[in-house]
């Protein structure tokens, strides 16, 4: 299987006032295969968004390597990075904040073509029209402005923009979390269909286990900046081994009143990833249970 993204031993921490440090990402390694959805799940503050941003090279890691299609992009400068960026696109959570209100959506979707002139010689408008139809919008919509669309339509426009340069990997950070239930399902369907058609890979960041179960091939569970369990979705969901994965699965609501569970009334909270400068979390070692299912030793 071709590896599109290969991340090894990534570390990222942020310093706070008072000699404290947030250990956002601690020695994390994973890879994403071609035509595969790799999901990062975890609760707020676990480092999943920082990890996605590192993989996109939107932030620079303290150490570790990021390989995109066999090129080490960890230390590339802005200019050197540009030709590689087209392989790597992003969809964000809020489709209202991620579209420029003063541009027509046709211009928004066509901008990547203009910025990467070398990428295509065909007339922009034809490609943009093709993209609009691909994501279930009409080519006539190109002249409209973002405010004329609903949330779900805007997320489709964001997907069209991400597809403009035929990327290999799309990073989707909580991309469907802000959408209404019925709209969310249609956008997820679109993402699955596009993946099959173009052999796209997704790095899918989400807190929603039920959505991840639906779309992911492989899953990594993050806790306090580290991956505590990783493997094929089927293994991780049907046979969770790490105590945190089990806690997460147990807490996730199931949309079936027949499966309602009695729960203990514990008031536990997740410990803080903030440490004094000279200290840090213990390194976890991942044990291989076979079939690519890795679990942190506890």
């Amino acid at each position: 299987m071709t590896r599109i993204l290969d991340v090894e031993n990534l570390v990222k921490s942020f310093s706070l006032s008072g000699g404290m440090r947030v250990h956002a990402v601690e020695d994390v390694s994973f890879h994403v295969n071609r035509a595969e959805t790799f999901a990062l799940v975890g609760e707020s503050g676990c480092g999943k968004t920082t990890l996605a941003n590192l993989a996109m090279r939107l932030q620079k890691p303290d150490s570790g390597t990021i390989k995109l299609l066999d090129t080490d992009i960890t230390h590339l400068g802005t200019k050197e990075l540009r030709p590689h960026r087209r392989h790597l696109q992003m969809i964000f959570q809020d489709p209202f904040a991620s579209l420029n209100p003063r541009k027509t959506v046709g211009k928004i979707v066509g901008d990547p073509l203009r910025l990467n002139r070398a990428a295509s010689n065909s007339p922009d408008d034809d490609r943009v029209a093709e993209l609009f139809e691909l994501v279930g919008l009409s080519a006539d919509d190109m002249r409209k402005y973002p405010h004329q669309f609903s949330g779900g339509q805007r997320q489709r426009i964001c997907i069209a923009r991400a597809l403009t340069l035929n990327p290999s990997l799309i990073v989707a950070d909580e991309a469907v979390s802000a959408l209404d239930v019925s709209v969310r399902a249609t956008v997820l369907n679109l993402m699955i269909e596009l993946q099959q058609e173009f052999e796209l890979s997704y790095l899918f960041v989400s807190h929603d286990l039920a959505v991840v179960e639906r779309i992911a091939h492989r899953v990594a569970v993050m806790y306090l900046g580290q991956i505590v369990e990783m493997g094929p979705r089927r293994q991780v969901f049907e046979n969770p081994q790490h105590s945190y994965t089990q806690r997460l699965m147990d807490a996730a609501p199931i949309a079936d009143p027949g499966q309602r569970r009695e729960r203990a009334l514990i008031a536990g909270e997740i410990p803080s990833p903030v440490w004094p400068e000279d200290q840090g979390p213990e390194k976890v070692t991942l044990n291989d249970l076979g079939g690519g299912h890795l679990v942190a030793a506890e």
Partner: protein
Amino acid sequence: MSTAAITSPGEASPTPTVSGHGGSPILSVKNLSVKFQDNIAVDDVSFDVSAGEVLAIVGESGSGKSVTSLAIMRLVELSSSGKVTDGQMRFSRADGDIIDLRTASESTMRTIRGNDISMIFQEPLTSLNPVYSVGNQLAEVLRVHKGMSRREAKRGVIELMERVRIPEPKRRARQYPHQMSGGMRQRVVIAMALACQPKVLIADEPTTALDVTIQAQILALLRELKNDLDAGIIFITHDMGVVAEIADRVLVMRKSHAIETGSVENIFHSPQHPYTKKLLSAVPKLGSMNGTDSPALFHLDKEEV
């Protein structure tokens, strides 16, 4: 625009109201309509809430679910353009009086809000005062609503905090809202809402901003308190997973209309209205993919929205 007919299995009354499980309802809303200027936000909605039950009002954004709850508290009129234009909201007070919340005077409403009907919201931080300790704020509720002395209130605060399972209540009482996590803040807000032993608790997306593990704790807490207080809970949410976890009965809203109402089992297992069916077909059910390796498309029920 479809009609606002309510389909409820086994109950085809011409004036569709589904009452709670036995007993007379604490709150009975009939034909409620709310307008903001010329926009109809709630159109002819009826439902009952009885003691000890959770009625979930579910719907997508703009369906009118939150406005319905604001109408019960008569808070829609706070925005100058909002008005309850039709209907009845009969509420049974603890002393046996039955009053129509729609026509009650503002001074009567002031004795009901917080005392008889309490409300909690999605973002606990906006419900708390940032410059007072949480203990201080809880004590104020006890002094104002229950007439407690300072000393009694101080003891009452610790009891309340223990009741909503806040660990180390003495230390926590001295903390300010910004020093607490979202889950702890929501516990404080729930404690505040419970201080007066309300007959009805309205919870508007109370767990939407919380992480799943914290959400599970808050849902368990609400379920326990419902039984202790014998209060009726109106739980407003867009999340069908949460509905399945907590509701006894469900009212589905869409575009300001009540679409379908029934027991939580009936709504999930034999939905009648095409919109309810479509909504449920779009909800991923954890565990439904067991035995498969690959992603799967949602088989969406076709229904024009």
